[in-house]
Structure formats: structure tokens, C-alpha cells
């Protein structure tokens, strides 16, 4: 294992300490319990947006804390969900009286811990809603699995909902918007190499010199298929077509119902992409892939989108939701409307996303 670290155990803590030292005007880091929050939190009257999840996906989420995006991020150990006390403490810190939206990626650990945090927040009379992101089309079946994983759309949802909250949307409005972003976003990733979890010290999986994994998860979860290495144009085509041709996807998710004050099961269905749709195209690096290669992916993706009548209105290219030092990439296409575009363009000032 070759990493710039001291002890595997101190990895997350020291990385956050570095963030705190680097970005003191933007954010603060609380330890025990661990969460990162806007330096100027709480913003009175604004819905607070909180996200979180295992560490190892940097800059997501802590790099997105700041004006116009997240109010707080709760980092867990590497690839391990954070705990409800972190989420509760973050909510208390940043709630400006307009309530808190938890944006949760659909992994069993994250879902359960955020559910407990929601229940705890309710006990403390903090208004909370939770929205799941489950956009990874590599998981085709939701009957026999936890359902689709939350990947690239998370970043886009955090930006768009952060802008909406800054714009004065109330809690149900931000939650509705977040759900809409999720239902219009689809992603798929691939890996050329494995990541190595510091505490484990050896690669999560092993790929031959001429092999790649298509449909990889951001924790190195197995994908759809292991295949022989292909050209970037072919890889881009596989990812993009899996996304564009993905059919209606239906699943039942558990959301907090404010009026009934309890969990309710909600059926959600993605619509399909069709010619004429306007999209935001997001080419994401897995952490170890250089930016130059991501632009080659984008070049082909733009060509494919055009061929399928998808009009790319905005794009994002870079390492935003990563898997430690894994080489590889993911593509996310988000069908956008005027409202999403306006919110996407709204100013954002965070450590890793800024315009």
C-alpha cells in the first residue's frame, strides 16, 4: 500500500484537520462527534442541507460545504457510514429554524444511520426530511438487492438543492426538488484499478493487466461485468448507453412523513431519457485518473449525446465523487429543466466547487 498517510486509523481525522486548517473562512470541523459545517452556520431562516457518508470519496462531501451547497457534512470512517449522533449534532449546529434536509446515498448503512438520526432529531424537535439518492444503473435489479446505489447524482443534487435553500425554498420544496433531481439522474462507473482501504492495507479487488470492471461501485463493489480492457471510446459508449437506454426504474423507499410523524413507504419511478431531453453531463474521475483522460471521455460522451438527441446544457468534469486512489471514471446524465439550470448556475463557494 502506497499512500501519503501516517497511521491508517488517523487517516480521516488528519485529513479533516488539514481541511480545517486550510479553509477556516469557509468551514469548521467538529470532532467527537465528527462533522464539517459552514463557518457562518446557522443561516437563519434557510433550510439546512446535510449530507454524509463514508470517507474516501473526497471532495464529496466535506469539500462541498459552504455558501450555496451543503451546510454540513458527516464523514464516517473510510467506506463506513457515519453514525446518527454525528448527523444529529450537525443538524443542531446548522438548523437555522427552517428545518434540515438529509441527502442520503442508498447504502444500507447510510440509510439506517440517517433514519435513526431523523428519529433523534424529531425527539429534539428539529424539523427533518430525508431524500435518498439511488442512481447507479449498474444495479439493475432492486428486488434482490438493497436497490441502486447512490453515486454521481448526489453531487448534482447537493449543488442544486444547496442553491434552492439559499434561494429561500422551504423544506418540503427543497426535498421535492431533491427527489426530482434523483429521479432524473442516472450514473454508471468503471474501474481500471482497485482502491486500497487504509485499514485493510491491500487492494479491495484485483484486476489483471488487461482487465477492467464495468459498473463498479464507489466502494469497489463489483459491477455488472469484468471485461478485457477497451479503448476509452468503447468504454464511454458502454457507460453512456447503459444510462441512456435504462428503462423505467421503480422502487419503494422509506421517507419520513411530517404529517403522520412516521416512516412511510413511497414508490418512486424514474422516467426514461428521450430524444430532445436537455441534460447536464458529468464526467467524474475515481481519484487516480488524470483530468486529461476525463476530457477524452467527455469528448466521446458529447458525441454520443448528440447522436441520441440529448442536448448537453451544462457539464462538470473532474474528480468529485471518488474511491480513494482508484483509476477509472463514472458518467452521470441528469435530465434538467429551467429551474434546475438556474439553480445549477447560482453561485457556489466551497473548497471544491466554486463559481
Amino acid at each position, binding site marked *: 500500500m502506497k499512500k501519503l498517510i501516517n497511521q491508517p486509523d488517523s487517516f480521516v481525522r488528519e485529513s479533516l484537520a488539514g481541511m480545517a486548517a486550510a479553509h477556516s473562512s469557509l468551514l469548521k470541523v467538529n470532532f467527537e462527534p465528527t462533522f464539517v459545517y459552514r463557518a457562518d452556520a446557522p443561516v437563519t431562516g434557510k433550510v439546512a442541507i446535510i449530507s454524509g457518508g463514508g470517507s474516501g470519496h473526497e471532495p464529496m462531501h466535506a469539500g462541498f460545504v459552504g455558501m450555496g451547497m451543503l451546510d454540513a457534512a458527516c464523514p464516517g470512517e473510510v467506506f463506513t457510514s457515519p*453514525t446518527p449522533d454525528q448527523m444529529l449534532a450537525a443538524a443542531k449546529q446548522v438548523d437555522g429554524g427552517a428545518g434540515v434536509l438529509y441527502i442520503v446515498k442508498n447504502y*444500507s448503512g447510510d440509510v*439506517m444511520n440517517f433514519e435513526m438520526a431523523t428519529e433523534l432529531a424529531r425527539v429534539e424537535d428539529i424539523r427533518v426530511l430525508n431524500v435518498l439518492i439511488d442512481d447507479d444503473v449498474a444495479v439493475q435489479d432492486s428486488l434482490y*438487492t438493497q436497490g441502486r446505489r447512490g453515486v454521481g447524482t448526489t453531487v448534482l443534487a447537493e449543488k442544486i438543492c444547496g442553491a434552492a435553500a439559499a434561494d429561500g425554498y422551504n423544506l418540503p420544496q427543497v426535498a421535492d426538488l431533491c427527489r426530482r433531481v434523483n429521479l432524473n439522474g442516472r450514473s454508471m462507473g468503471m474501474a481500471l484499478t482497485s482502491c486500497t482501504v487504509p485499514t485493510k492495507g491491500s487492494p479491495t479487488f484485483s484486476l489483471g493487466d488487461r482487465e477492467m470492471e464495468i459498473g463498479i461501485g464507489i466502494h469497489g463493489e463489483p459491477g455488472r461485468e469484468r471485461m478485457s480492457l477497451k479503448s476509452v471510446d468503447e468504454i464511454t459508449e458502454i457507460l453512456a448507453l447503459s444510462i441512456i437506454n435504462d428503462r423505467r426504474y421503480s422502487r419503494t423507499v422509506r421517507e419520513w412523513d411530517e404529517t403522520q410523524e412516521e416512516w412511510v413507504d413511497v414508490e418512486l419511478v424514474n422516467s426514461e431519457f428521450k430524444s430532445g431531453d436537455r441534460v447536464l453531463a458529468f464526467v467524474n474521475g475515481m481519484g487516480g485518473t488524470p483530468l486529461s483522460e476525463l476530457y477524452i471521455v467527455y469528448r466521446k460522451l458529447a458525441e454520443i449525446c448528440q447522436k441520441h438527441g440529448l442536448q448537453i446544457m451544462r457539464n462538470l468534469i473532474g474528480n468529485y465523487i471518488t474511491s480513494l486512489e482508484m483509476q477509472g471514471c463514472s458518467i452521470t446524465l441528469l435530465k434538467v429543466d429551467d429551474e434546475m439550470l438556474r439553480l445549477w448556475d447560482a453561485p457556489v463557494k466551497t473548497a471544491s466547487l466554486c463559481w
Partner: protein
Amino acid sequence: MNKSQVIQWLQNFATEIERNKEYLTELDAAIGDADHGINMERGFKKVASQLSSLADKDISTILKTVSMTLISTVGGASGPLYGTFFLRASAAVTGKEKLATEDLLKLLRLGLEGVIQRGKAQLGDKTMIDVLSPVVDNFQKSVDNNQTTLVAMQQVVIVAEQAMKDTIPMLAKKGRASYLGDRSIGHQDPGATSTYLMLKSLLAALES
């Protein structure tokens, strides 16, 4: 089962987790993300450090403290699941200084129900429920037959060990292992394994 046996149970469980940290992590490496032993050890190290200060509290308070500690230190899937198990277990024995066999049955049953509610997994999904569920059924039978707590737990551990092994041929439908599809078959579930260790630790506390 008295209070000091409850403390002993938790102490034993912490020791078992420490001893089996690598083993549980290896099981998780095969079908999950290689952290179950690490997660559980992080939680039960903290629990173990609190036990001496809990000795004079009632059983419900002890279990609630364990629950809170697990919830705030374990993370992942097992944190909320074990946390919920002990939270419900605590609620099942409010005010008790001593547990009759029926009390222990109630503790296990409500714990199991909590895990099911929290994780929405079903029997056969290749999770800790595949150990907890047959264990509660078997314990019920022992209560119906007026067995002692000790005898009931001795049978429970036999059932639990078998149930743990029975997860090997199962296809995972919950948790990370489910993404493996068919490839999850042939591996023992890590959560089921730690649950077996929990029950074994309980028996050891009764026998000591």
C-alpha cells in the same frame, strides 16, 4: 440472569469480538467491504471501557448505554442494527434488576423485531436475522417447556451455530453482499457470525 451476569455477557462479547476481529473482517471481505470486524471492535472496545461504571445501574440502563455507544461508534450497517437490538432489548426489561427466563425471551424477541424493523430484511436474506430468528423460536419452545434459562441458552447456542452455517449457501438480498448476486453464495454471513458470538457470550456468562 442477574445484573453481574449481564455485565459478564457484554464483557465476554467484547472479548469474542476482539479475538475474532480479523475473522469477521475476512468474512466481510469475501462478500462485503472488509470492515465488519473493525466496526464491531471499534464499538465493543468502547462498551468494554464503560462496563465497570455501569455495574450498579439496572439492566435496562446498562443495555441502553450499550445501545447508545454502539450507535455512536460502530457506523455502517451493523451500528444501527446492533444499536437497535440493544435499544429494544433495554425497553423490554425496563426496571429489572434480574431477568427471568421469560424476560430473556422478551429481550431477544423485541431485539429481533427491532432489527427487522430497522433493516427490513427477511428470513433467508443472509443477514444476522437468519441467526436471531430461529434462536427466538427455539427459546420460545424452551419457555413453553418450562426449561431453565441455562438449558434454554445451551440449546440456543447450538441452534445459532447451525443457523450461522446455514447462511453459507444463501443468496444475499440485503446489505452490500446483495450486489454480488450469485457470487454471495458459498460464504458465511459476517453479521450472522457476530450474532452467534453474542449468544455464545451470553451462555458463557450464565455458565460462569
